[in-house]
């Protein structure tokens, strides 16, 4: 049995890279054959165990359990690089109801380590793949028949999150021990496993209005799609790019992408962002940070981040834009949040957005007006795109005046 506990760094062939933004990735081939279900077990490091049936790829898995309250969007979730290293628990008990269209995939591969569901439904016949077929193609298992509400309540009440999925032949105590022994989510350089090692180009959709550099810490397809839809041509640069290389692209806008892992350990990326931020404040290209990009901006300003007791994963939290009082429901997918710290103000930032449920910092804006960031995902996928105007404002602001007010002034 193949173990996907450690994912090898992605070194895509050229055609695969093109596929990243254009076609179906794992769904470019015929649907894979399904394997018969077999009994398995989900074991958490602090001893919580549930039995179920293993479906999808015949693989074991280990990773951090996170739960998402999204009721739809399984294709988007599994292929979103931000889920690297994580085992995704679906709070909605029926998953796989519809066939997944290649357009719904967020990258060329499945990044989540495994899926934990109540019931994996075989969808009606038709075009697209079933969720189970995607799991097989992605090489990850699902464990089904799990009482995901019971598990979610345990996680909310503080259960430790490292977990393994094993066949039922593995003794339970051994499975728990393996969960304890697995590397922590924070200790792994997930960005390196998901980001592009070389530059990529995405053309604008419609007339070209400007150029963006998108620094890839784990780009999901919807992000370049949202930028391209606003007339930006996009150069996607690897996460180990230098500030000089970014500047050489002469971008109108630098976008710091979402991505997986704990930003506090990403020293190289923090240094890069610090350099880019200093440039922006000094009149260089303005910056829009999203999710991990937002967290890196805070860390670059020497403000701390903290892993949340319960991560935000779903499409139902409201976020308020503090300047306008405007409230939007956002798509959320983050384990880590920026802490409000005097360092933020010292570096010229103030909190621009807040989660109305728990007050989490959901956005920052720099006094220069040239750096803005959001913790949530205005691109949705899955989830609402009510706050998509974050992209409108950033694009309009960046294009209106390369020296001017960015991006606080609505276009």
């Amino acid at each position, binding site marked *: 049995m193949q173990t996907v506990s450690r994912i090898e760094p992605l070194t895509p062939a050229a055609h695969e890279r093109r596929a990243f933004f254009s076609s179906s990735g794992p769904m470019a081939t015929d649907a894979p054959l399904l394997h018969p279900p077999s009994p398995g077990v989900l074991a958490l490091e602090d001893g919580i165990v549930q039995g179920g049936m293993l479906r999808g790829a015949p693989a074991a898995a280990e990773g951090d359990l996170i739960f998402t*309250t999204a009721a739809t969007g399984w294709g988007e979730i599994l292929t979103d690089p931000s889920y690297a290293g994580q085992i995704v628990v679906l709070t909605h008990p*029926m998953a796989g109801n519809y066939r997944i269209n290649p357009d719904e995939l967020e990258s060329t591969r499945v990044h989540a380590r495994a899926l934990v569901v109540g019931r994996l439904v075989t969808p*009606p*016949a038709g075009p697209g793949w079933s969720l189970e077929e995607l799991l097989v193609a992605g090489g990850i298992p699902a464990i089904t028949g799990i009482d995901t509400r*019971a598990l979610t309540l345990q996680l909310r009440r503080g259960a430790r999150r490292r977990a393994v999925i094993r066949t039922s032949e593995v003794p339970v105590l051994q499975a728990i021990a393996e969960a304890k022994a697995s590397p922590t989510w924070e200790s792994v350089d997930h960005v390196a496993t998901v980001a592009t090692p070389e530059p990529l180009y995405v053309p604008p959709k419609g007339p070209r209005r400007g150029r963006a550099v998108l620094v890839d810490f784990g780009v999901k397809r919807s992000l370049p799609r949202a930028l391209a839809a606003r007339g930006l041509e996009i150069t996607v640069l690897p996460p180990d790019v230098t500030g000089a290389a970014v500047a050489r692209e002469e971008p109108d806008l630098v976008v710091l992408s979402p991505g997986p892992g704990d930003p506090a350990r990403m020293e190289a990326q923090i240094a890069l962002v610090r350099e880019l931020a200093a440039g922006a404040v000094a009149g260089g290209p303005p910056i829009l940070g999203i999710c991990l990009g937002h967290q890196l901006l805070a860390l670059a300003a020497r403000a701390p981040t903290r892993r949340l007791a319960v991560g935000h994963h*779903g499409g139902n939290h409201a976020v308020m834009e503090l300047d306008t009082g*405007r409230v939007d429901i956002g798509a959320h997918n983050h384990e880590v949040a920026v802490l409000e710290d005097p360092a933020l103000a010292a570096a010229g930032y103030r909190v621009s957005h807040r989660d*109305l449920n728990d007050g989490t910092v959901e956005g920052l804006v720099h006094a220069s007006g040239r750096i803005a960031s959001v913790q949530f995902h205005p691109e949705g996928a899955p989830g609402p795109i*009510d706050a998509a105007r974050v992209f409108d404002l950033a694009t309009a602001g960046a294009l209106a005046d390369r020296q001017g007010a960015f991006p606080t002034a609505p276009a």
Partner: protein
Amino acid sequence: MSAPRRVLVIGSGPIVIGQAAEFDYAGVQACLALRAEGVATILVNSNPATVMTDPDVAGTVVIGPLTVDNLGRIIASHRPDSLLPTLGGQTGLNLAVALDDAGILDRYGVRVLGTPLAAVRAAEDRGGFRDLVTGIGEPVPESAVIDSVEEGVRFAEALGQPVVVRPAFTLGGGGGGFAFSLAEARERIAHGLRVSPIGQVLVERSLLGWKEIEFEVLRDSADTTIAICGMENMDPMGVHTGDSIVVAPIQTLPDPLVQSLRRCALKIVRALKLEGGCNVQLAVSPDHDDYRVIEVNPRVSRSSALASKATGYPIARVAALIALGRRLDQMPNPATGGGSAAFEPAVDYVVVKLPRWPFDKFPAADRHLGVQMKATGEAMAIDREFGPALLKAIRSLEPRGRGWLWEDPEWGLAARGPEDLVAFLAPSDTRLWRLVALLRRGHADATLLSAVTGIAPWFLERLVELVEAERALDGMPLIEAKRAGFGDAEIAALSAVPPAAVRRARVRARIAPSYRRVDTCAGEFPAETPYFYSSYALPEVPPPAERRSVIVVGSGPIRIGQGIEFDYCSVRAAWAIREMGLDAVVINNNPETVSTDYDACSRLYFEPLDTESVLDVIDHERNLTGEPPIVLLTFGGQTAIDLAKDLAYAGVPIAGLGAEAIETTEDRERFATLLDQLGLEGPRGQLASDALGLHAAIEALGLPIIVRPSWVIGGRGIAVLRSPGDVEAYLRTEVGWPLRVDELVRGVELDVDAIADGERWCVPGILEQIEPPGVHSGDSVAVLPPQRLPRAVQEEAAAVAGRIALALGLRGVLNVQMIAADDGRLIVIEANPRASRTVPVVAKATGRDVVAAAVRCALGSTLNEAGLESGLAADGPMVAVKAPVDSLWRLPGVDLELGPEMRSTGEVLGLAPGYQEAMAAALEAVAAHR
């Protein structure tokens, strides 16, 4: 703009098909919310059987006709500064618009709160709404106004078929209809042009067979707009959503499409500038490539009540606060108490709603379903997956033999499938069972059924799974059968054992459901909502329960003969229990109602009202509190009373009422014996076990007679036979032998509600029926106090009721129907040892909390402790006239003659110092709803 201080709230009037208890729920939530904000409310409604018309809910209550004239008078005398029109259904909205049109709002400076009337008009006006929706780039069904046949055919050709043809300016859309081919379209258009007085038709793209999706949206004055719940109709377009099986959350659509539809709904609500709740209906093509906006309802509705119960998010309460100018982001999350109300619920279960139709009462009615709603009520069920939720919803309908396994022998499916599958599966009240029967018997598969019905394959594949589980059930481990969702009764039937044996096996094996919290957030945050559903899943940390619990068994879906009045009783009972310092536990499954608002009780269980589920809740409450709960069956109508035997068999004591007493009143022979013992008189009559017996009885009693089967509800199967012809006709129907055959006594029929503490009794009021005996009391106009009988006769009648109550050993409330016969006899027709339809009327007319007194007596208080004096209460200052309202215009094929079968769906009350004025008010109120 000054803050509103006195707000006029318009109710929705009597229950009619399409407008039911959901508006009592909305009104109660809104009034309580407004008053908690320090705002005085003036509530107007003609429907006495509502919680909202109690003064402790609404402050100033005016029970009277919902007409522009009357509302104008109320505005003039009570001088509200504001009007909240969006809580009283279409009735409330129409009245608000009419008051505005009449200049009354302007004259008295009454401001409209929440959604502006301009937005209401924009949403209601067909043409204006089309323009608005297309103006924001959202699609509506393509249509064209057509003046000539050729032009119309060209348009129909371009659209593709089917199309809908609607002639202009014909009454009720007469002369219109669907055209499935171009030839048919030509014919329809030509006909439409001929019948239209202006020679004009509208040709519109038909969305027949498209998926029907609804969103419940809230918007506040700061433009924060959120979708509380997306719901999917299992029945595709063509069946009214009130007649559809509805599922939440949306099950069969991919995320990008769900997001597009949600975004479209929010855009429309924003464009209309609505402030409050709004329902948006959308249609999605079966291939998911296309969608259309169908309509919006700029108010709370049946769907918003369903969405509130499905998610735990109280839409009406929040909408009322929005109307006061509060913002979503400034209100706390109504379920978790923290965060903010700007939050979209996430559910970690599946909700299924099934409609309840009145066809059991009206066998002659056309049972086909279409764009005109026919259901009187609905039941909702929650479980982790669709299958178990559906099975639980079926149990909640109380289908009387029509469980999951029911098949109509007349379908003739034993040997082969139906010849005309399309006709067999045309939308009807039995389509679900027909689909299951075809699958069960292998006559069709999911693909074929989907092609014929347009129901999404996903739903049919779930039915296939259930049928497969049913097939494998004999021999399946019991826990698996329970997880699949089968009720004890179905498991028993499929394994050929009695249901009680299944329960015994469950108890032995400790197989019991766990109760899960409906928390609006799928477990993401701690929540205190005392709202639970059962599931065969891992146990959840139970809520704290320190006090003894009293269980109020509710009345389930609204049907003819068992309406909103029992919800009134259940809610008042729960409130009385809480006031006594005990935990009020409610079991019910009707999503429209106040009783299924978790704010109305200490713990709410959204469950079927059958023996299995009620016993499961009782066991769970016993484990929770450490002592057996007290069970009240007297407020949930016949549904609750019917459980008495099984509960008694299971050793559950019923407060204030022995199972023996119930049987005594329900078995007519035993009841006759009781009357004999008390020296009271029943109608002369005998039992007939067949046609021969019936003829013998007629010989002895003479015509007219009244015939009724034992164990009846709402007069089902009851008939008055006046001539030999009537007798022959009755014998041709499906007669429920044995029949009780009684003389039809001529005189004045009385409805007497008595409250007893075991030793003494009180009758707070007597209703005198205006129609002659033989007309069902639910269909009769009635007056309190009686106008045609001297006080002495009334006192005698009250004493009769009291003596029966004491003889039955009853503590609580009892209803006795009797006739003060023209020949001076006082004839007892029947006694029901429970709260009856008349309880809310008596409560409103006398101003006494009859239900609270009954609860106190049932729980051991004396009459005096319960605030009542023994005997017949003195007449109050007001005369009350109750008048029935029916919905028969919704049900083609039903004849209009009144008889012992109840027909009306709701009632109104006229309340005035004098009889004439009260009668006039009642009749005016009835007229307002015709």
